[in-house]
């Protein structure tokens, strides 16, 4: 009974549970530390369970429709409405479920990691509440099938993210980063909303499926496409608009940075959703595909080359984050560029997309792991500066192990997960355009180089006097890192199972615009 109730209402509960948790966290924070921590664990675990349930349902039976406020949530169309949905619809297809699962895993990890707060940290209730709200924002963004609802959740995630970035207010630098993030996100959100208004004014609907069906691709639609894509690409950190990203990532608390990676990838999901599902084959896909590819290549090159110079370890990782975003854009952009050609799509396009999407989830795992290790180092050593760090390998052995796993994964060394997705991207992109694949490989080598530097600077060398009292971080932080490391290794050792289970349906859901429309409109 309760299981059935849970599975029918899973999309709503996926949002409602963390939201309720966030609202109640300040009240529980008054009771003390332990109830609040237990509450956070409970809520994140429940969210994870719900998203796993939802994903299982989606992967077995196909897209799940949830209509808010209707009598029967599974029915999108009211009988006398003339074949259009009037209410907000959550349209959870394989891609959405995959993103939601990833987000809730990282949310769980970030929650666990944040539990051992320092001795005198203030404002932890607000911190946890905002963490849950950020989770809400990401989950809503990836699940919704409604453009305005997407905007609302985008704003939730932006504001919660900005407030969390500004958490360390004592020197003002973190607030500067938060201000930059909030300002740019708000601007991008408003321009996104303008594009929504353009589409609404023409087609009188906000549902993605309905607009996709009615799309005529006139001038207004083209402008709206440009507004959508640039705003979301900016939020994802594609290169000419990536400047906020190192600032923000280097200043946020580490668990938040690991989570902001997922937030950026939710924006990336928005890019893919807009390009593939909203516009789809009506798009001038070669041009848009090359636009995305160029953004991706620029991201890879500039990100990795700027990373080599950095001395702040989190800033360095943030630049790598940009560079990894480039891989995803490259993979999916290749898939978009050959969207209209079934033969090329069959031979390498789909593989490229799968590689991009697989890289997305891999990136969330190993990048989150790396940021968490950086946070652990900061937790004990109190600095991010590579020139001051050194010799920590003697006292923080487990952290060092996790760091090695993450670094090897991001550099694409087998058998970790980064290698498998990069392999897919290299080979398929080589068939599309050899130059791009060569660039991708060079970037991978540079990534390895810069992580060798980080490893050398932090862990190698003799033990230093100022870090004599440093010991291993508390158990919850180790557990959080351990979960991500385990996932990294597992996904590296069994890549094909993972691709078959989750990535291929997701890529198929993106490519197949007709099935998305049909899931709402009930057949074409």
């Amino acid at each position, binding site marked *: 009974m309760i299981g059935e109730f849970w599975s029918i209402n899973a999309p709503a509960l996926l949002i409602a549970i963390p939201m309720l948790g*966030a609202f109640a966290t300040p009240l529980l924070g008054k009771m003390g530390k332990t109830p609040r921590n237990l509450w956070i664990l409970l809520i994140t675990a429940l969210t994870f369970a719900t998203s796993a349930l939802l994903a299982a349902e989606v992967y077995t039976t196909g897209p799940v429709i949830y209509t808010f406020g209707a009598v029967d949530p599974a029915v999108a169309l009211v009988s006398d*409405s003339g074949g*259009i949905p009037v209410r*907000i619809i959550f349209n959870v297809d394989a891609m959405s479920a995959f993103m939601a699962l990833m987000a809730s895993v990282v949310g769980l990890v970030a929650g666990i990691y944040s539990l051992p707060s320092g001795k005198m940290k*203030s404002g932890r209730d607000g911190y946890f509440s905002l963490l849950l709200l950020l989770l809400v924002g990401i989950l809503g963004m990836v699940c919704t099938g409604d453009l305005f609802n997407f905007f609302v959740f985008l*704003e939730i995630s932006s504001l*919660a993210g900005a407030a969390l970035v500004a958490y360390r207010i004592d020197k003002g630098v973190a607030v500067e980063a938060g201000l930059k993030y909030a300002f740019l996100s708000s601007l991008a959100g408003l321009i996104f909303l303008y594009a929504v208004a353009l589409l609404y004014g023409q087609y009188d609907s906000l549902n993605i499926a309905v607009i996709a069906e009615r799309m005529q691709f006139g001038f207004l639609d083209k402008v709206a496409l440009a507004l959508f894509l640039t705003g979301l690409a900016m939020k994802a950190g594609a290169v000419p608009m990536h400047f906020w990203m190192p600032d923000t990532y280097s200043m946020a608390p580490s668990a938040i940075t690991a989570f902001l990676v997922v937030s950026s990838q939710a924006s990336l999901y928005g890019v893919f959703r807009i390009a593939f599902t909203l516009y789809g084959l009506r798009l001038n896909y070669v041009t848009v595909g090359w636009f995305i590819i160029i953004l991706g290549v620029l991201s890879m090159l500039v990100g990795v080359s700027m990373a080599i110079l950095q001395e702040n370890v989190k800033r360095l990782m943030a630049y790598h984050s940009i560079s990894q975003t480039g891989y995803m854009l490259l993979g999916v952009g290749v898939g978009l560029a050959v969207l209209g050609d079934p033969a090329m799509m069959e031979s390498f396009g789909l593989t490229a997309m799968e590689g991009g999407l697989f890289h997305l989830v891999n990136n969330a795992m190993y990048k989150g792991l790396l940021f968490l290790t950086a946070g652990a180092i900061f937790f004990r050593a109190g600095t991010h500066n590579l020139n001051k760090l050194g010799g920590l390998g003697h006292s923080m052995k487990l952290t060092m192990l996790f760091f090695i796993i993450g670094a090897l994964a991001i550099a694409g060394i087998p058998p970790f997960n980064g290698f498998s997705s990069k392999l897919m991207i290299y080979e398929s992109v080589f068939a599309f355009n050899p130059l791009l694949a060569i660039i991708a490989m060079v970037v991978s080598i540079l990534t390895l180089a810069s992580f060798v530097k980080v490893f050398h600077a932090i862990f190698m060398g003799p033990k230093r006097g100022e870090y004599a009292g440093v010991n291993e971080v508390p158990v919850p932080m180790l557990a959080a890192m351990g979960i991500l490391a385990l996932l990294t290794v597992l996904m590296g050792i069994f890549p094909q199972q993972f691709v078959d289970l989750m990535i291929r349906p997701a890529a198929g859901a993106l490519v197949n615009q007709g099935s998305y429309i049909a899931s709402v409109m009930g057949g074409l």
Partner: protein
Amino acid sequence: MKKVLTWIFVAVFAASLLLCAAGLEFGAPAYRDMDDYMIAHGQEETGANNIVTAVVFDYRGFDTLGEATVLFTAVLGIGLVLRTLAMEDEEYEYE
């Protein structure tokens, strides 16, 4: 150089926005089925005379929940940013 580029970018953006504005039909939208459905059935389905309220709280009530959450987020963020400082023992190195 930078100023010129600024104004060029803004001009392109302005031109596109104005062209968009000229391209839309004011006062006579082409498709109107969703809103017509709401106006025709809103009173019976939601019991509200004010259709905007019906939309805000019933048809698109989920957006309203999100929007209330945005407000809650802003309040939490302001409380977090303007909180009294008690972090003397944490030394940060930003450079």
